[in-house]
């Protein structure tokens, strides 16, 4: 850390961060798009006359699933080509955190957005008359599924464009790194979960087009609750970025902040996916049994709240690590 000047380390962090951002960011979208192509193919084989519409729906769905990778590409380009002011060592950590945040955050949404597109293609083969409604549902579901990636993008941009150089180097280096990890990792579970719900809604609309309205409403509700863990990740990231920490020499406080970020980030994965499964199942059965909507919705909300509990424990421990320790 000693013989090299800040500018060298900043370039190191920028290049590593850029590589990580695009590397991680490419994973999810490609898997989601491949899944969509697979389902589209299966759907065309079932019903070759609808090939044109199915193909169009596949392309649109893939384009939406691509969005999170595009955000990662934008962040990678910014990291590679901007000349960052070489003022303090905190910038080194900031750049790395920014790349990690967007890179990791793109994984969940990419895979998640592929699910409703695939289900929409299958649904069109089954129920050609519902094509318009299916496309609309797919678009709404996929677009809402992107929200956790947006949170990661916002965190990434705040990290890039805020001036952190006035802060003490230690422990702020760990705070910003923790912020990037909290936002990035926290988006994985919610992205996947949201995609599962949207998939069930497209499948349900294809099965039973008359139930489209309750299915869409419960889908939006289920997705919104699934996203709460991503919101916790964003919250912890904001606290870590904007709180003023006292300068310190020991290694313990930075590790506490880094641990807080990791705790919230990794801890948000499970509840996100689990609540996604809950909402997916609820939406699927509302389509088959629309009179039971009220009961199903109630049980879904209770079940999701219980599944959220470990996410809340992670949030509590993260906040304790930031404020108390």
């Amino acid at each position: 850390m000693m013989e090299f000047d800040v500018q060298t380390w900043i370039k190191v962090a920028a290049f590593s961060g850029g590589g990580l951002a695009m590397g991680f960011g490419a994973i999810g979208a490609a898997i989601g798009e491949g899944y969509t192509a697979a389902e589209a193919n299966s759907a065309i084989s079932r019903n070759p006359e609808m090939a044109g519409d199915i193909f169009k729906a596949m392309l649109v769905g893939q384009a939406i699933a691509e969005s999170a990778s595009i955000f990662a590409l934008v962040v990678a380009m910014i990291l590679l080509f901007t000349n960052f002011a070489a003022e303090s060592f905190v910038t080194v950590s900031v750049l790395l955190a920014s790349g990690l945040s967007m890179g990791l955050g793109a994984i969940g949404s990419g895979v998640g957005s592929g699910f409703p597109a695939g289900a929409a293609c299958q649904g069109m083969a089954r129920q050609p008359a519902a094509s318009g409604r299916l496309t609309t549902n797919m678009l709404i579901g996929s677009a809402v599924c992107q929200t956790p990636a947006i949170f990661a993008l916002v965190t990434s941009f705040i990290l890039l464009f805020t001036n952190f150089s006035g802060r003490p180097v230690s422990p702020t280096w760990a705070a910003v790194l923790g912020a990037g990890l909290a936002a990035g990792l926290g988006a994985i579970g919610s992205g996947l979960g949201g995609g599962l719900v949207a998939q069930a809604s497209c499948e349900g609309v294809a099965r039973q087009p008359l139930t489209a309205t309750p299915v869409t409403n419960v889908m939006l509700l289920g997705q919104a609750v699934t996203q709460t863990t991503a919101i916790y990740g964003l919250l912890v990231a904001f606290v870590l970025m904007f709180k003023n920490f006292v300068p310190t020499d020991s290694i313990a406080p930075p590790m506490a902040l880094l641990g807080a970020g990791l705790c919230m980030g990794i801890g948000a994965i499970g509840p996100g996916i689990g609540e996604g499964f809950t909402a997916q199942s609820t939406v699927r059965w509302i389509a088959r049994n629309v009179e039971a909507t009220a009961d199903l919705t109630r049980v879904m909300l209770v079940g999701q709240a219980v599944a959220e509990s470990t996410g809340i424990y992670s949030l509590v421990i993260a906040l304790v690590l930031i404020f108390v320790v």
Partner: protein
Amino acid sequence: MGELGKVHQLLIPLGGHTLTFNLEAILMTWIVILVLTAFGYFATRGRSILPGPMQALGELFVNQLFGLADDALDKELARKYAPMICALFMFLVLSNWLGIIPHLEEPTKDLNTPLGLGLMGFFIAHYAGIRAKGIKAYVREYFEPMFFMMPLNLIGELAKVVSISFRLFGNIMGGSIIILVVSYLTYSVLLPPALNAFFGLFVGTIQAFVFTMLTVVYISVQVK
């Protein structure tokens, strides 16, 4: 390669602040506007039952896009907003295709254009929602289904604008940078035309379509 990231700007100081004009984006947007206006004039001049090529192209656009709007919105709303949707799609397709022509670049490469169009769609959707539901029901929707969901719903609405704009911007800007880099690395041999066709024409059309469809869907979600 040194040109990467350079934007020609016109700065006008005005009472303490500076007005910034990104010249390339403005010039390219004006080119798109002129071409579309000329197309509109020639397509509707001398309408006949047996359409000439311009009129046939115009009818193709109008049929497809009005059908799209009809699918998603109900009757009178579709008639109100379908012309805007048609114009949005034609503007975006032509903007994204402008990069194929040498020395011209896409106006959507500058973040201001997609962000402006996204905000326009956002305001139109919410205006339509308030018109359709009345202000009280509109505000009450933010508090559904539980009281503390209000900030979540608010953030969700803002996320929609960001995602729709950044998706278009990222695709077009990313595509143009990739074409630039690959042309530089392969000394402009063999690969660039194929890449241009893929990123410029194919991705440009799909992204224009996705942007338009999402705007229609957002309007339809707000008025329900």
